[in-house]
Structures are given as structure tokens and as C-alpha cells.
């Protein structure tokens, strides 16, 4: 019996690994190409909007207020647990959209607000940050599984990385598909931020925007379409 089990394992494991590798290659190939299934059927998409605090949030809210509300709905807002201002701003905006005659219940369904653990606080030691990174990543994975976003908007800083990586892993494993849009902060004129560089180099972002033409020249796969501020 033991012989049989190990035989099965010996055969199954390489098959499983090669399947994953092929799937990984397929996902990499599809990244940056429009999802056909989505465009054929969907009239609306579930959105995950990552608010990065301070200036990042201000820039992201400029994108959110420009989105077509009926298409990009429902909207799930995520911000770091230590950031109290960002979700308040998003909440105020969503409230401003609600017309008095519209059912409040429906409005609440259209927007949700979630806080996420941060990988690392400023000044935290590297040893404890391994544990907090694991915690932040599993929390991010849980958020992606629960929300199943079809579109993710992010613009740094680090808070968006566990979310984007989780969404990418779920794509590889075949659980859902999300298009990731990253808009590098206007503060980055000459070089990408660490978050931006990771998502650009690993090709996790489907579309990558920068806000200065000289930055687009350095990173040719990025897209320049004006400034947000």
C-alpha cells in the first residue's frame, strides 16, 4: 500500500507543479490584456479601491470621483488600520452620492469600507515585521477571497502590495480574475516608488500609469495620461 501511495505522489506532484507553471505562464501572458469574459458580459464590475493615506488618498479620490458610478459598483474601500482619515473621506464622498429618495440600504450595499493590517509600521524591528507581514498578507488574502474584486485600483504605498499579490496568486490558482490598475503617485518624478517598481517589474499590474512624461520614458510599459492633482 505504502508503495502505491508514494507512486501516486511521485506521478501527481510533477503533474501538479507543471500545471501550476503552465497556469502561471498563462496568467502572466494575460496580464496587460483585457479580460474578454468581462467585456462580453459585465455591465458593472466589483471594485477594490486601496487608499494609501495622505496625498495618496487625495489622488485616488480624484480617480474615484471621475469613475462612472453605475459601472464601477459596488465599491470596496480599503485603508490601513492606523489611517483614520482616508476611509472617512471615502465615506463622506459616498454619502454625498446618496440622493434622499434613494433607499439607504441599497447605498450601503454599493460601498463598503474595510481596514487592513499593515505589513510594517515605521520603526518596527525586522524580526517582528516577519510576523506582521504574514498577518497582513493573510488578512489581504481573506479580503480578496471575500470581496472577489474584478477591478483593483491602487497607487501605493506598501498597503497595496499584499492585496495585489493575493489577487495575483488567486488568478494563478484559478479563483476569480481581477484587473489591477496602478497609478504611481505624482510625487514620483524621476524614479518609481518601491511598490510601483515591484508591481511593474513583476508585471502584476495590468495597466501601470505614471504622472510625468519623463518617468514614462524610463519605464516604457507604463502609460502617461496626464496628472491627477
Amino acid at each position, binding site marked *: 500500500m505504502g508503495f502505491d501511495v508514494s507512486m501516486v505522489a511521485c506521478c501527481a506532484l510533477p503533474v501538479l507543479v507543471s500545471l501550476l507553471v503552465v497556469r502561471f505562464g498563462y496568467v502572466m501572458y494575460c496580464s496587460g490584456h*483585457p479580460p474578454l469574459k468581462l467585456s462580453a458580459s459585465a455591465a458593472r464590475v466589483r471594485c477594490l479601491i486601496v487608499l494609501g493615506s495622505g496625498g495618496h488618498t487625495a489622488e485616488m479620490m480624484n*480617480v474615484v470621483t471621475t469613475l462612472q458610478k453605475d459601472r464601477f459598483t459596488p465599491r470596496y474601500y480599503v485603508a490601513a488600520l492606523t489611517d483614520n482619515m482616508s476611509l472617512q473621506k471615502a465615506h463622506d464622498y459616498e454619502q454625498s452620492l446618496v440622493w434622499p429618495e434613494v433607499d439607504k440600504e441599497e447605498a450601503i450595499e454599493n460601498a463598503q469600507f474595510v481596514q487592513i493590517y499593515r505589513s510594517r509600521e515605521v520603526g518596527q524591528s525586522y524580526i517582528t515585521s516577519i510576523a506582521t507581514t504574514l498577518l497582513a498578507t493573510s488578512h489581504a488574502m481573506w479580503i480578496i477571497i471575500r470581496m472577489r474584486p474584478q477591478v483593483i485600483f491602487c497607487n501605493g504605498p506598501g498597503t497595496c502590495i499584499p492585496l495585489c499579490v493575493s489577487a495575483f496568486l488567486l488568478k494563478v490558482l484559478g479563483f476569480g480574475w481581477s484587473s489591477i490598475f496602478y497609478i504611481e503617485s505624482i510625487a514620483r518624478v524621476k524614479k518609481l516608488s518601491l511598490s510601483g517598481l515591484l508591481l511593474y517589474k513583476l508585471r502584476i499590474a495590468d495597466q501601470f500609469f505614471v504622472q510625468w512624461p519623463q518617468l514614462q520614458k524610463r519605464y516604457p510599459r507604463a502609460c502617461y495620461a496626464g496628472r491627477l492633482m
Partner: protein
Amino acid sequence: MGDRERRMVFVTVGTTCFDALVKAVDSEQVKEALLQKGYTHLLIQMGRGTYVPSKFTENSTLQVDYFTFSPSIADYIREASLVISHAGSGSIFETLRLSKPLIVVVNEDLMDNHQSELAEELDERKHLFCARPQTLQETILAMDLTALQPYVPGDAKPIVTLINRYLGFPVD
């Protein structure tokens, strides 16, 4: 004092600790330079810094006041004739949107000093003046406010259009 027009300089460090800037504007040289340029009042938002500026000045013609935080600094910016700010993008764009002359002072003590990129780029485009704490006095004396170009705010529409196109939505 009543016969002189009130011209206020508003200094803001945002939520940061930037004692080097507060110290610089509190120095006699910088105050002298501001007086020479015709400013009458100096209001400092000092954030989390520990350096407390002195309200007393030698010639006591420049009225100095300070506070730590305010939920909204827009009203102070609106009231100011000149804004001296840290290099955070929030304060920079808030000031530019209100079309106020702006000097951005880069904090050289920050580890990851990418903030100077934005200030230097906007300085090159003549939307503001970029300085360091030690060059603030020279910048004030040398600045020509008529050389400043108005800043045209950005627009998210082109980016949102590309996102719509990517997702296969009809672009309107």
C-alpha cells in the same frame, strides 16, 4: 500698524516634525528678509516639532504667532500672501490650487528623500520656489513673484478613459 496693509506669511509643516524649517523662519535673517519684502505677519504651523518659535522680535515690526495643528489649513492659506511649506504633496497642491505664491522647503533629514523630486520639478516649471532650510533667506530675497506661472490642476478623465477602454466599456 493700522495704516499698513496686512501681508501674512503662513508656514506649514503638515503632520510632520520639521524643526529645521521652524528654526529657519524664526531666525533674525529670515524675518529681516520677510520685512524687507513687505510682509507684516508670520504665522507658523509647527506640527509635531519641539522647537517653539519666539513671538518677540528685535524690531517687533513682524508679528509672529504659531500653533501646532488645525483640521484644515485652507483658510490660513487663503488669508496668506506667501506660503512657506514642507515638501508634502498635500500642502503643495492645496496652495497651488488657491494660486498663492509658494516656497517649498525640502527636509534634508528625511531618510527617503523622494519628496524633493516633486518640489524641484515644479520649481523648474516655475510654479513655486524650492529651497533648503539654510537657503531660505536667499530664496526670499531673490524671489520674483511675477515670474511664477499659474498651475493648471490635473484631470483624472484621460486615465479613467483608458481604464474604461481596457475593460471594454464603451467610452463616452
